[in-house]
């Protein structure tokens, strides 16, 4: 493995900030210019990230030293396979979301759009930061930045509902990060050789064995629940509450960036701070598998009972995040790989579903599953994409979701947890039960007569909405057929 | 409140008495306070260093001159703060206050005014004496200044505030207080510009035809005069502000 010094991680990190300047400068009055800048920034960022993939595939890591936080701890950016997988997914999907939000925000005549785009860009910068972090403290910095910068997005509506949602959102995220994560971090940094160990993901994996196994378990719990963005039960309820945000936010941040930052951090801690070997030897590690499995099943059951489409998707997200954490807790190579893959696969599938939910809202103002009868004929593209997204999340070939679930199952068997495979199967069945009815209702149930009255003029959503969701739906296929690259980045390739 | 006060008092008293068990013997010449290098230096070497016979004055104005400068500043602050708190400005100032019930319009008493007329010059002369003689006997800027200030207050008491303010208006008093600070700090600064530390009076010997010791001796008189300026004027300003509730008219 070769270490290359390069500024590209930093450029990917700072590009959104340059974008922010442009966005604020263009402002509300020059809306077209503002949106163009957003799109260009997204494209630029994605291309910078993608340009690093060949280097990483050639078994290199890219590093950039930004600044010295403490005596021994630098703010270090490092691009490795895992990080770039996540970064690439997030930045590519940002382009789609940017386009989508033009249609969405204009379609609904939303207020304060400049603020929306500004904080969206800052959130993306923070996401890149997490993806490229080289040690725990760096991750913590960007993690907090993400929590704060998404708050104005969640409370975008500025009404009572937004206030309640925003309160829950922020209190969960900040309480866990400040009360669980911060003490855990300072515990690690100080007691390991008085700060000489920097918790670097590359160099200091497994150094935590310095502590007694008891302490290790406590730290494991602190870290897992400290990263509450991972949505593990019982610190999950911020996610359904965050659904008061405009749909682009829900789509990119609460299906891709924010929640994935959570599981990303958890995987980092499991695989690069503790390390697979140490984790396997840990007595209490089984608890984590139970928690992950419980999260998967319980959230799927709750999702069944939700009529609000976005809330149903939110609980589905919690369940899918459980898969990722599960993959990490299995402490096998396949399991970890499956977790990494599932980040990408689920991102693509779930963003499609959210895009569709938003497109339905823009076109018809419908929020509830029970209101969707007959909508499939009016909005064929949207509902078609919804079906594809659902199937991918359920995990059917030839869609991306299948591959990640496959590796997760392999990992479970490898680790000797046969019952976990059963849990995976059961939960896939539950996925079918709560996702497919949506598409079925839309396509095969006729509209009531009185509903036809107000739905006469209904047509497909604006093109800015339809194009992105079609693209991401196709992406679900694409990921299945071109999964070699991802497998290699996840460390499962040849 | 009372219970709390009793509790605090009992606790503090206990602490104080506990500390007293360990005090140095009463009047013991060997006690650390009396026997330390510093106090021995003050007693033995004041004459050598400054040629001032009154050690208290030498310690006050020279060895610990920096303390004394801020002591003067404290007095100055008191004057300014009282003015800032009480003085009525803007609309409030022009409003004529209603007469108090106990206020009487009688003319000043003949005996009192005549006595005061005789006394004031003597008091002021004495003030100068106390100020100037501070080097060799108890006295100095603070004491002289207070006596001087008292003479103005006496005028205000015997007649009324306006009459005293004819001689020293509060605005001018505050200006003069500032002048006092300027004299003190100015001497310090001058010493600094002449190459020494701040307040190193000995350096003044480079521009005055005296020895280093005598430079300290004379500079001490200079700063005492500065102190006297501030104390005199601020004492009067405090009296004037307090007695007239900040309106600076009438008074008691």
């Amino acid at each position: 493995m070769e270490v290359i010094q390069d500024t590209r991680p930093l450029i990917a990190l700072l590009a959104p900030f340059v974008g922010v300047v442009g966005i604020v400068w263009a402002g509300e009055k020059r809306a077209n210019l503002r949106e163009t800048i957003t799109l260009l920034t997204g494209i630029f960022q994605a291309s910078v990230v993608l340009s690093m993939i060949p280097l990483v595939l050639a078994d290199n890591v890219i590093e950039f030293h930004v600044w010295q936080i403490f005596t021994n701890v630098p703010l270090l950016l490092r691009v490795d396979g895992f990080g770039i997988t996540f970064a690439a997914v997030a930045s590519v999907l940002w382009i789609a979301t940017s386009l989508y939000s033009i249609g969405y925000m204009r379609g609904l005549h939303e207020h304060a759009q400049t603020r929306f785009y500004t904080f969206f860009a800052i959130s993306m910068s923070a996401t890149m930061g997490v993806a490229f972090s080289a040690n725990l403290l760096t991750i913590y910095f960007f993690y907090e930045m993400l929590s704060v910068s998404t708050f104005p997005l969640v409370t975008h509506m500025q009404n009572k509902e937004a206030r309640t949602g925003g309160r829950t959102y922020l209190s969960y995220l900040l309480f866990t990060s400040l009360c669980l994560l911060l003490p855990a971090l300072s515990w690690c940094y100080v007691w390991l050789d008085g700060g000489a160990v920097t918790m670097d993901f590359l160099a200091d994996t497994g150094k935590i064995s310095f502590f007694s196994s008891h302490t290790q378990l406590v730290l494991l719990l602190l870290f897992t629940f400290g990263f509450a963005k991972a949505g593990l039960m019982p610190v999950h309820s911020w996610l359904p509450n965050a659904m008061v945000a405009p749909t682009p936010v829900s789509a990119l941040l609460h299906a891709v960036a924010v929640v994935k930052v959570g599981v990303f951090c958890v995987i980092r801690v499991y695989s690069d701070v503790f390390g697979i070997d140490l984790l396997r030897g840990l007595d209490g590690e089984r608890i984590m598998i139970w928690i992950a499995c419980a999260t998967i099943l319980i959230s799927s059951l709750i999702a069944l009972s939700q009529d609000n489409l976005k809330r149903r998707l939110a609980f589905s997200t919690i369940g899918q995040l459980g898969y990722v954490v599960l993959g990490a807790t299995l402490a096998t190579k396949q399991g970890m790989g499956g977790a990494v893959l599932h980040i990408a696969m689920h991102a693509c599938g779930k963003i499609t579903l959210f895009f569709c939910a938003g497109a339905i809202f823009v076109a018809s103002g419908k929020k509830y599953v029970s209101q969707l009868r007959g909508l499939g004929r009016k909005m064929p593209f949207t509902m078609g994409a919804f079906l594809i997204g659902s199937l991918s999340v359920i995990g059917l070939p030839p869609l991306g979701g299948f591959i990640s679930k496959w590796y997760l199952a392999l990992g479970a068997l490898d680790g000797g947890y046969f019952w976990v495979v059963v849990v995976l199967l059961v939960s896939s069945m539950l996925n079918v039960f709560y996702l497919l009815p949506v598409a079925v209702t839309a396509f095969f149930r006729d509209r009531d007569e009185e509903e036809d009255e107000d739905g006469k003029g209904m047509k497909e959503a604006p093109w800015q909405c339809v194009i992105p969701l079609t693209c991401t739906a196709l992406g679900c296929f694409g990921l299945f057929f071109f999964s070699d690259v991802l497998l290699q980045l996840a460390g499962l390739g040849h | 409140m009372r219970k709390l006060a009793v509790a605090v008092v009992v606790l503090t008293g206990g602490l104080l008495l506990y500390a007293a068990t360990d005090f140095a013997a009463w009047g013991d010449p060997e006690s650390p306070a009396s026997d330390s290098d510093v106090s021995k230096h003050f007693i033995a070497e004041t004459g050598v260093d400054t040629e001032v016979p009154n050690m208290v004055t030498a310690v006050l104005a020279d060895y610990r001159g920096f303390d004394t400068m801020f002591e003067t500043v404290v007095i100055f602050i008191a004057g300014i703060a009282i003015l800032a708190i009480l003085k009525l400005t803007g609309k409030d100032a022009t409003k004529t206050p209603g007469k108090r019930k106990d206020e009487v319009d009688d003319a000043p008493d003949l005996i009192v005014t005549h006595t005061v007329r005789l006394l004031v010059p003597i008091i002021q002369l004495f003030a100068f004496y106390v100020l100037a003689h501070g080097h060799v006997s108890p006295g100095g800027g603070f004491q002289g200044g207070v006596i001087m200030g008292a003479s103005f207050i006496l005028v205000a008491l015997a007649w009324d505030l306006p009459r005293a303010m004819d001689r020293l208006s509060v605005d001018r008093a505050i200006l003069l207080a500032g002048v006092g600070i300027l004299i003190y700090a100015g001497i310090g600064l001058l010493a600094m510009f002449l190459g020494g530390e701040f307040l190193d009076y000995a350096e003044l010997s480079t521009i005055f035809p005296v020895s280093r010791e005598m430079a300290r001796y004379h500079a001490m008189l200079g700063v005492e005069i500065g102190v006297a300026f501030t104390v005199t004027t601020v004492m009067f300003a405090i009296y004037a502000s307090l007695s007239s509730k900040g309106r600076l008219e009438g008074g008691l």
Partner: protein
Amino acid sequence: MSENSIALIFACPLFGAVLCTFLGGAKRALCHPVAVVSLGGALWGGIETLRRVVASESHEISYLLGGWTLDSYPRGVGIEFRADLLGTLIMLVVIGVAFLVALYSKLTVSEETPEKEGPFYTLFLLQVTGLAGICLTGDAFNLYVLIEVAALTGYGLIAMGSARAAAATFNYVILGTIGASFYLLGVGYLYMKTGTLNMVGIQEVIVQQDLADSATMQVAFVFIGLGILIKMAFFPFHAWLPNAYSHAPTSTSCLLAPLVTKVMIYVMIRMTLTVFGVDFSFEETLWTKLLPWLVVVAIVCAATMALAQRDLKKMLTYLIVAEVGYMVGGVWIYNYYGLVGSIFHVISDACMTLCLFLGAGIILRKVGTSHFDGLKGLFRRMPLTMTGFFVGGFSIIGLPPTCGFFSKWYLITGGMLAERWEYVVALLFSTMVMVVLFFRLIERIHLAVKESGEEFGHGHGDLDLPENETRFDEAPLSMLIPLLLSAAVVLLIGIYNQDVVNLVESFLEPLNLPKGTDR
């Protein structure tokens, strides 16, 4: 001239103050520039001093006032200014904060205390003189005089405001005098036992004669400690602070709130480390056992009281009381990292409190009230001001990369290493309270929901706010620039925390404090 840079630190504001008195009558408009210029001079002197201190071998400079130099006279004959790294850093913070407040104060002074610019700036500058002097003096009695200089100017500055402020000042006078007199009494005991007033001299005698067991010394320690705790508004003695600071004129609270309590904490650190010495303070007294628990009570109570406030300025004052608890705790958990955290927190807390109070002053001026009700939808009107205000808020919460994060990090670390879990828990508790407090504020500033929960508009698109509540209406530049500067300082101290901490560490290194990492 360079060797006299220390003298500039107090001479510039002193002469500026006298000049302001002279100008106070006819040329009031000149007072503000005079104040700014003289503080600029002091700032230059301060930076020059810091440069020299860092460059010098022992990292400290002795400046013997009156020329009573150490090589020809015994130590303690004259008054010594000792600029070591700790004192110089805090002094620089004092002057820097004062400089920003002076810039900021132009409008508020002429509006809130009309025709009193002269007295205001005189007192203002003398306050700075006193506080900066406290940081540098090496003489225990001179410290008392300077404390009184700072206190008296403080009384004057606060009572200049409304009648309510005067009523609050009275409590301040009483408690402040008790505090200062206790300190004076303690110094008297010290003098009785050691025969000198010089801080280093006292320390030398304590070590030579092994005075640790002496009852008088123990009581002296208690009185000095109590006096300082009262002065810094440590929890049970905090009664004077919230009312005094929240009713004081804007510029006054902006100057006093960041500085006074912090400087007193510096005095406590100075007394424990330099005067009594590490061994005496931490090993021979009960304070290390007792005080962390008091700190826990203090932090929890102050944070809870802050939670109950519905007035911005009042809430901030309770936060100060809680922060005082942090710093006192950092000292008395008796740990190297705790002390680093405490000292760093003194610096960062001064900056972030400044930022918040400057912001609150602008809000008060714009909205006419600092009650929470007045805050709704302010972000739309004053985005820049509010951004500056938020930076201060984030720093108080302890979010990276603001300086508040780093100080909290060191404090938590110190608490953990000393195994003072109760302190760590109290810190985390109050962090949570601050999250609630500030996001409650941010929510109000950001959202357009009335206190009652009633909505203004209909969600999407229009918010139906009256015209004057949505118009872009930024604070005047003379107030906005200092606020943004202070916000920038909060961020910069965070980003360059390593440089500051290195200075603090090279001050603490020779003291051999327990590091607790060799488990």
